[in-house]
């Protein structure tokens, strides 16, 4: 299977994103965050973006560059604890922030990737996080309806890939990446290790190629993809 090669330059790949786009961004802290793709998105300057990510990285890193550059309208995240700048922008009303429980965010993304409309669970019933959400009663029990998330684009950091878009992730850099790689109309992957087709063990692929649209081979990772000394 050679299929259409999905290799692109980073400029070509990120140019598929337009103003006003919704974008999922992989990563939990540094691991799995596609810093190179984010930097290119900052360079190209698309505006009015909605970003879905576990967190907003730390001040001065990754997602924070998009915030500083005024490109973000809304964040959907699980927490902003390590980015005081993002919290300040939220408190000043410069950006809109929607918080989601972490596992619920993961499932909403997966549901979008699996072609479902949503799911029901008892998580958060009786707390602020369930407020305003549609409830569904099944066999006499009440559940919160959580709607599926899909976006225009997803930015993914993979440890290894091939030109068909089969992906493998490393250690805790996996996190949201394989879920987001299923759930966007335009899935863009960065990786330092683009292997010839056939070089990845077919039993060990985390994301199968059909979900992926563009693969960007990196000569080196962005300097922010490194140990953070606090």
């Amino acid at each position, binding site marked *: *299977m*050679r*299929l*259409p090669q999905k290799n692109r330059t980073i400029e070509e790949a990120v140019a598929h994103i337009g103003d006003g786009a919704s974008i999922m961004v992989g990563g939990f802290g540094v691991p799995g965050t596609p810093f190179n793709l984010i930097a290119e998105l900052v360079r190209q300057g698309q505006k009015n973006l909605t970003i879905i990510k576990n967190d907003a990285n730390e001040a001065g890193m990754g997602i924070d560059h998009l915030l500083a550059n005024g490109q973000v309208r809304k964040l959907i995240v699980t927490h902003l604890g390590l980015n005081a700048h993002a919290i300040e922008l939220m408190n000043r009303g410069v950006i809109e922030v929607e918080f989601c429980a972490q596992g619920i965010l993961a499932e909403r993304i997966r549901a*979008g*990737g*699996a*072609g*479902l409309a949503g799911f029901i669970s008892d998580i958060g019933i009786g707390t602020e996080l369930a407020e305003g959400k549609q409830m569904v009663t099944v066999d006499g029990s009440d559940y919160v309806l959580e709607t599926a998330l899909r976006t225009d684009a997803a930015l993914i950091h993979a440890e290894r890939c*091939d030109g*068909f878009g*089969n992906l493998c992730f490393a250690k805790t850099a996996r996190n949201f990446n394989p879920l987001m790689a*299923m*759930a966007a109309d335009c899935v863009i992957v960065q990786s330092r290790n683009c292997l010839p*087709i*056939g070089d990845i063990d*077919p*039993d060990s*692929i985390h994301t*199968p*190629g*059909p*979900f992926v649209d563009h693969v960007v081979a990196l000569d080196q990772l962005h300097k922010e993809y490194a140990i953070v000394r606090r």
Partner: protein
Amino acid sequence: MVARAARAIEPGMLVNLGIGLPTRVVNFLPTGMEVGLHTENGLVGVGPTMDYDHADCDLIDAGGAYISALPGGAFIDSAMSFAIVRSGRLDLTMLGAFEVAQNGDLANWKIPGKFSPGVGGGIELAQKAAHVMVLTTHTDRKGNPKLLERCTLPLTAIGSVERIFTDMAVVDVTPQGFVLRELAEGISVAEVKSATGAPLMIPDGDIPTF
């Protein structure tokens, strides 16, 4: 008809071939053509069928045939397999049919009282593949038409079939109903019309043969 159906597959497509006649389409694809074949039991990148002496008992397609995996293939679980289908990443599926209606409705899984072994993955394939084509004989064994004004059997999917390849013709499903596109060699327009259980529009000009 199988060879004709194979020509509907374009390089680079991700395709699922249903059990039965559609499975045989793979034998008519040009050698080296860059098509990704999906089998819903858990493989993207289906390779050639294997004979019993070279078969791997861990490697079958959804119809139970022993197959191989091509380089670049990926094994996936059943949830991931249908995530690909339902999320719209499957470009084309070719399915068998008991009945196809002029509005694209498909019935291919149950004949009440006679045949009801279950639907398998058919509903999701028929409802969610980007393009749905049917590969079937034009009439059943008794000569009754399978292309109908409306289906009489339990439906698999509503309004999803785009094109039908039969032993007599290639017929498109359009908003106006069935339209004859091609004739099998030696078959006349009148023969197709009489074997079709719904109005069949005939475009002006020559009808190509296959």
